[in-house]
């Protein structure tokens, strides 16, 4: 038993729903009590999907236990088939149904429906959402993919995008455009937008692009083993990674990457080099998210914006090794945990200037008065913007530049702040309007006056460091002494 305040991932059947909802022509019959229907709102409210997820819940009740639940499941499956006429049925159990052991797969098969039935067993007391998505997609691929002549070298599948994924919709558009410019044909994109019969055609591609390893790697690895298809695992987030990605796919497909590389439309490199960005140099960032997004964000932060990565971590235990390796590269130790409180403690300890994380970290950052940008699931409705905003490819890098730099005070803006320092609304103490006010310790006059002498663009930090120092040393007020003791303690 584990005390949990907030969870980064839902249960594994929510992962299965992300796959089923992304696909067409597939219906998921889930043996589950009524409350589990909450999961629909993730798709209809947070992602603003205009359709209900293709999920039928059996919604068994206590009075059904010990007798009718199996019958209930069979009826639900039969009615779902008749009403929705899907190409295939996915069947499984949520956490409660797992305990009553009705065997949805066996029950559904016994119905003798004229369509394929794919059972997925998702151990709800061990595994979580991303694992559930990967396993479901893998089971579907196993069930439907047929070995075939791979056809031309320059033809690939794109694997991994799901419903409720962080910017999946726009990433797919971006990567499809990029591949098209390279002259690479796309055979199947899955699960997003694919039907079961599309999965049957997966074998017609020469290689698979694993856009989201969390959800697509398991299926892609199986395809490599069974069909001998190639696999691209580089996640094209950031300019450098996108270039690497292009090199890799071009080599596999036997195409010339130079037309795309020569005219890439990437503004990030110049924006980062322009003098205004001097203010970004060495900003201390803390990165946390799913494994792939966290690793990618750390690289962009360090190589493409000149930040210092002071913390890196993930809640995806399946990718702990990769994240540890990446962290070692920055000379830090990875934070591998799905305990929100542990992440909060780490951020509090490190006092970064920017947090790149999920909505969970956004809330931590808000509370601590630190700037933040969202780079990974879990998300809120605001992370599904109306405008085109991929994370991948060159345009994705442009988007990243804007969204990460925005929360930090831009250099130019800092100059303006200096000029208008005395303006009541515009002075440096006002801070960003979205940041919470948090001033527990009393500063005496002399210390306060001294603080004013510190250059305004580091003043906020000096104040925070001093207060933290005072708190750590059990001081109740801050004097001139404290200010300088703290300065000595933290250096800078």
């Amino acid at each position, binding site marked *: 038993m*584990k005390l949990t305040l907030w969870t980064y991932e839902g*249960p594994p059947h929510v992962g299965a729903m992300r796959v089923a909802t992304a696909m067409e022509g597939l219906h998921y019959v889930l043996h589950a009590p009524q409350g589990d229907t909450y999961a629909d709102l993730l798709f*209809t409210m947070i992602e603003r999907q205009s359709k209900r997820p293709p999920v039928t*819940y059996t*919604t068994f009740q206590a009075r059904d236990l010990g007798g009718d639940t199996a019958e209930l499941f069979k009826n639900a499956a039969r009615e779902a088939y008749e009403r929705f006429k899907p190409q295939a049925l996915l069947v499984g159990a949520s956490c409660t149904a797992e305990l009553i052991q009705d065997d949805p797969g066996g029950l559904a098969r016994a119905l003798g429906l004229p369509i394929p039935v794919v059972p997925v067993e998702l151990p709800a007391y061990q595994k979580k959402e991303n694992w559930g998505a990967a396993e479901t997609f893998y089971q579907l691929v196993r069930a439907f993919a047929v070995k075939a002549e791979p056809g031309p070298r320059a033809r690939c599948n794109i694997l991994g995008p799901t419903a409720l994924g962080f910017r999946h919709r726009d990433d797919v558009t971006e990567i499809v455009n990029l591949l098209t410019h390279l002259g690479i044909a796309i055979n199947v994109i899955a699960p997003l937008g694919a039907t079961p019969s599309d999965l049957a055609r997966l074998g017609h591609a020469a290689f698979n692009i694993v856009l989201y390893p969390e959800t697509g790697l398991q299926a892609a690895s199986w395809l490599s083993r069974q069909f001998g298809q190639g696999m691209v695992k580089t996640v094209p987030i950031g300019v450098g990674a996108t270039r690497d990605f292009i090199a890799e796919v071009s080599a596999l497909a036997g195409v010339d990457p130079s037309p795309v590389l020569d005219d890439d439309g990437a503004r990030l490199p110049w924006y980062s080099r322009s003098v205004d960005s001097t203010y970004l140099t060495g900003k201390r960032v803390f990165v946390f998210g799913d494994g792939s997004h966290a690793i990618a964000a750390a690289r962009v932060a360090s190589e493409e914006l000149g930040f210092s990565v002071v913390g890196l971590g993930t809640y995806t235990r399946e990718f702990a090794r990769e994240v540890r390796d990446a962290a070692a590269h920055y000379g830090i130790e990875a934070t591998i945990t799905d305990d929100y409180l542990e992440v909060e403690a780490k951020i509090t300890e490190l006092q970064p200037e920017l947090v790149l994380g999920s909505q969970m970290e956004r809330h931590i950052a808000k509370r601590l008065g630190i700037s933040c940008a969202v780079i990974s699931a879990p998300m809120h409705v605001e992370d599904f913007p109306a405008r085109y905003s991929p994370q991948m490819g060159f345009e994705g890098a442009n988007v990243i530049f804007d969204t990460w730099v925005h929360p930090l005070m831009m250099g130019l803006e800092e100059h303006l702040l200096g000029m208008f320092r005395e303006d009541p609304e515009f002075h440096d103490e006002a801070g960003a309007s979205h940041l919470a006010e948090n001033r527990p310790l009393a500063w005496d006059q002399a210390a306060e006056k001294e603080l004013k002498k510190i250059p305004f663009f580091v003043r906020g930090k000096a104040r925070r460091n001093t207060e933290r120092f005072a708190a750590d040393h059990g001081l109740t007020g801050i004097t001139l002494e404290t200010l300088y003791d703290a300065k000595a303690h933290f250096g800078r």
Partner: protein
Amino acid sequence: MTSSTALLEERPVLRERGQREVFCGLTGIIWLHRKIHDAFFLVVGSRTCAHLIQSAAGVMIFAEPRFATAIIDERDLAGLADANDELDAVVTQLLQRRPDVRLLFLVGSCPSEVIKLDLSRAAARLGRRFGPEVRVLNYSGSGIETTFTQGEDACLASMVPVMPATDASGLLVVGALADVVEDQFTRLFAAMGIGPVRFLPPRQARDLPAVGSGTRFLLAQPFLADTARALEERGAARIPAPFPLGVEGTTLWLQAAARAFGIGVSHVRAATDMAQERGRRAVARYRAELAGKRMFFFPDSQLEIPLARFVSRELSMNVIEAGTPYLHRQHLAEELALLPASVALSEGQDVERQLDRCRAARPDLIVCGLGLANPLEAEGLTTKWSIELLFTPVQGYDQAGDLAELFARPLVRRMRLAV
């Protein structure tokens, strides 16, 4: 009451048993933890349970919420760990973190019930260990036992046995209300000369009201069957009344209390005239927009029937169907007597069939859960999410206009938008 019960017997109710599209009782934690300021709700359940509360709470992550989940894992199931020891350890950890907590609810879930984890024994054991500073109670919010608002019922019912005893006469208002609404009612009862008035749930655990044979209670919410029964077992008597939604509902609710305390109608009128007038004016603003509009309620909070009564009688709307997850015939007798005969009633749910009926009827406004709202909007229908009716203060005279506005706004939005 006999006549209205008889009336109900004649009234056809469509009973459905199919897929339900409603939350489970755990959801109540979201408003209950805001209401009882020093209570903590520990769900003993699965990752699904944790995810449900977090997703339904939506969107607002509070500083540190006073709810959490003790997530059962495979070790607990395989018997490798003693689930009771594990639970004790989690509670110890929790109470160390939150020394401000005075009342801890262990909240049962589907998994804890299926594996037969005895939370009442656990509550007694932990109560001995952490009491008297912290009182430990338990109830079930599981989806196999409770639907949405029934979680509040189960929570309040769990407090009844530990309420202090009294023989003194007094009024108890039962059901979580927003603090501002409580304060308004307190003033009105005082003006009418009814007192003392206490509320369940209290804002602080130590303020748990006393109960006994002199207690008469008014239900402020229609979904409190178990709580009412438990109070009756403690000798309290329920005052039958409609619910305080809308001006009419509020007046009848207050009048019922006055009658029970032997206070004359003129007294009630004197105390409430101004507020009634204000409420009527506020509601009238929306009647023009809403009159004649056709409405459809999906079953969700059990507030559907009182709301259907309000919109029919005070806003002149036509309710096509009022669905409720559970129809408590006795507690709703007064409501049903006021509800126009043209309103079709349904109990339980088969969501696909109900959607078929709803689409065929093409109502102007649909009250439904969060999972259905956007898909229906995408079909060109207009919706109002029912969960907002639990999060927003809607009871009493001064909220009657706000309640009407909740229904008017989606229609206004649809009218304004030209895209």
